[in-house]
Structures are given as C-alpha cells and as structure tokens.
C-alpha cells in the first residue's frame, strides 16, 4: 500500500514538474529536443494511426449492426441513437485512444527510461547538469497531450461513420438519417467531453510509464515486467478515472 501511495505521489510530481517545465522549454529549448518531440509525435500519433482507424471502423460496424438489429425490433430510434452517441463520443473513443497510447507510447517510454538508466544515459544527462525528465519525458507528454484529442476526434468520427453505414445495411434507417440524429442534440458537448478525457488519459499513461521506467536502475531483468506493469497499471488508472468521471457526472446530474 505504501508503495502504491509513493508511486502515485511520484506520478503526480512527474506531471506537475513536466507542466512547470513546458514554458521553460518553450523559452530555452533543450539541445536537440525538437528531434525527441518529433519522434514522440510520430510514435504517439502517426504509427498507431492505421491500427486505430481500423479498430474504430470495426467497432463502428459492430455497433452499427447491433443498432440496426435493435431498430428492426424496437421503435426507440432517438433513445437508441443518443445512447450510441454518448457511448462512442464520451466513453469509447477516449478509452480506445488511452489504451492504445498506454500499449504503445507508455510501454515504449518505460523501456526507453529503463535502457537509459542501464546504459548510464540518465547519469550522463544528470552529470551534464540537465534534467532527465525534461530530456526524455517532457517530449512524450507534450506530444501525447497535443495528439490525444486529435486522434480521439478521428476515432470517434470514424466509428460513427462506419456505424452509420452498418445501420443502413441492417435496418430501414438511412446513413444521412442516422448521422443527422447522431450529430445533433448534445453531440458537441459529448465530443468535447471525450476530447478532454483523452488528455487526462494521456497524462495518466505518461505518468505511469515514468514511474515504472525510473524504477529500473541496475537490474535489466526487470525491464519486461516494468513494461507490462506500465500497460496494466495505466489501463487500470484509465478505467478508474472513467468510473470517477461517471460518478461525478451522476452526482452533478
């Protein structure tokens, strides 16, 4: 229990330290920092893009087929489409992006921090009066915070587009009809809510990855375990925060 509290405390410290460093870095960039930011940008946003698009499309089809079948039996079009909208934009899209960032960028950051410690890179950075957080973590955090909402938006829209096509195949509702119902009402609010959540998830993943990555000092055999722990703990944190959001939403009506 003490370890968990220490880890959470360190995770909070990492996030606050990085956020405090953002304006400092903007004024005085780290040597070759732009390259690390670009690498993080590619890793967080570009590399997972095809997988994410495919996943969002497949889930859109699955949702669309389910909705289509329900529509042939029930006559609750508005209720059904509103439920799908809330689930896709508010919950599913940020969750999928959070899990994907945890599985790729989070695990990669843990592995990178671990190998940096083992290869004395972390010591060398400190020895040159630099800050390993600023050097290795900040570019990933900045890229993740910037890209998470963008890819969440893409993911949500892709899911809705494919579910619209699947609904048309499977029911009497046309694609334009489905899209119109889907993208009216509180769609804008749900969309922004999902984007905000994705930023929180991105921060959680980077903090979790940093806590695990910096735990490795000399023991290389811990690296695979730490990488796995990063994914499972980040996933757990994302689900925990999702539950917290739901509780707060219910409480606030």
């Amino acid at each position, binding site marked *: 229990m003490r370890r968990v509290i220490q880890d959470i405390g360190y995770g909070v410290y990492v996030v606050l330290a990085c956020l405090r460093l953002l304006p400092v870095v903007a004024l005085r960039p780290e*040597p070759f920092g732009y390259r*690390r930011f670009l690498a993080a940008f590619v890793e967080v946003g570009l590399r997972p893009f095809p997988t994410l698009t495919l996943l969002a499309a497949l889930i859109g089809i699955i949702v669309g087929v389910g909705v289509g079948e329900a529509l042939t039996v029930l006559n609750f079009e508005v209720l059904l489409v509103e439920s799908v909208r809330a689930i896709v934009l508010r919950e599913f899209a940020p969750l999928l992006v959070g899990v994907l960032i945890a599985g790729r960028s989070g695990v990669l950051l843990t592995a990178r921090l671990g190998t940096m410690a083992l290869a*004395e890179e972390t*010591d*060398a950075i*400190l*020895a*040159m*009066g630099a800050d390993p957080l600023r050097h290795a973590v900040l570019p990933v955090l900045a890229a993740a915070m910037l890209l998470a909402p963008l890819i969440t938006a893409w993911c949500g829209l892709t899911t809705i587009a494919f579910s619209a096509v699947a609904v048309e195949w499977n029911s009497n509702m046309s694609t334009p009809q489905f899209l119109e119902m889907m993208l009216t009402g509180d769609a804008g609010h749900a969309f922004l809510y999902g984007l905000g959540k994705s930023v929180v998830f991105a921060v959680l993943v980077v903090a979790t990855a940093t806590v695990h990555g910096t735990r490795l000092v000399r023991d290389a055999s811990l690296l695979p375990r730490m990488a796995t722990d990063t994914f499972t703990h980040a996933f757990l944190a994302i689900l925990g925060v999702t539950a917290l959001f739901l509780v707060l939403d219910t409480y606030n009506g």
Partner: protein
Amino acid sequence: MDDVMPISTLAALEHIGLVSHGRRVLDDVELAVAAGETVVVQGDNGAGKSLLLRVIAGLARASEGRVRLFGSDMSGAGPASWAAARRRMGIAFQNGGLLNELTVAENIAYPLLMAENRPSPRAVASKLEHALISAGLYRVADALPWQLSSGQVRLTALARATVAEPELVLLDDLFAGLDDDAALEMEQRFLASRNPTAGVLLLTSEAALAERCADRRLRLELGVLRGP
C-alpha cells in the same frame, strides 16, 4: 579536516561512508582534488571506484560524511544546486553513457549547449571541431553510438567530459578492457586534452596508468581509501 576548504580545492570528501543493501561499500573516505592536480584512485573491480565518483557527482547519496564542491557544502543541496555544480564538472562514465539517439558530434556538443552562458553557434562549432580532431573522432562525427567501437565510445565520452573545459574532470575507469593500442591512444588523448588548471580525478584499475598519469596516487580497497 578544517571547516574552511583551501581555495584551490575543487572537491573534497569528508568522512564519507556508504552502506548499500546492508554492506558497507565506502568507509570513512577522505579525499580532496585541487585545481591543476591529477589524483588517481586505483582499485580492483568492486572496490567502490564508480560509487566514489557517483558520490562526488551527487548521483549517489552517502550515508555519512559530507561532500564539498567548489567551496560549497553540498549536504542538503537541492537538485538545482547539484545541477549547477555538475555544469562545472566533466564526467565520463565507464561505459560511456553516450546519449543513444545523438551522433558523436551531438553528444560532444551537448555540454556546450547546456552551459549557463551558451556560447555562440560559431564558438560551439569551433570547440566541437577542435574536440573531434583532438579525440581522433572526426571521421565518425556523424555516427551513432551503437556504430562505434568500444574505444571510440570511450574517446567520445572523454571528449564530451572535457569539451567545455570544466574545472573538475571525473573519469571512471575509461581505460579498462581496452587493448594496449587503444588504451595508449586514450591515454595520449587524455593527456593532450586536459586543461592544466583543471583538477582531475581518475579512477582506474590499471596500476601502470596510475603510475604514469598521477600527481597523487591513492588505492581504494573494499571501500577504504589508502595511500599508494
């Protein structure tokens, strides 16, 4: 040891003890490095040499005693004070500690770009070129660390540690495991590149090297520092 550190003393360890995993790895170590002198601490593998360097650089915390750097007591110093002190040092680690995503030239330029008063791009380029030539690394300036031989990795680490002309240079067993030619080349490069006013602490397992390079020699045996 007196409370007041002589003005030429760059680093001093006072009664340093360190217990790690229930084992005493440094025991009542007293050591001072003055400007312009080369102190060589010779010791076998596992004697505690790397740990000694880490304590001086603030990368490991001693259980007892205190570290003084550039006239300041570092007990209780925060990360910013340590970072400022480390910018006045050049440190080369045993395995190089080169930044993996940077080329040889970028690794060497890094301390120049991290300096409090960053030199002009022209000055950086000039110092970098000089460092690359004197370390014999010009040909591999654009290579990444994994493309280098073990000797070249250490030469890069040495060049990076000395390029900003630090007041204090700490070298951790850079010569270990090299063949005779590479070790000799490294030694010559080290002697040629050293700033005569800088203090140097060279930690090594090689007795002959200690003999040739040292102004003052000490032996570290199982965490205890003795005379030559």
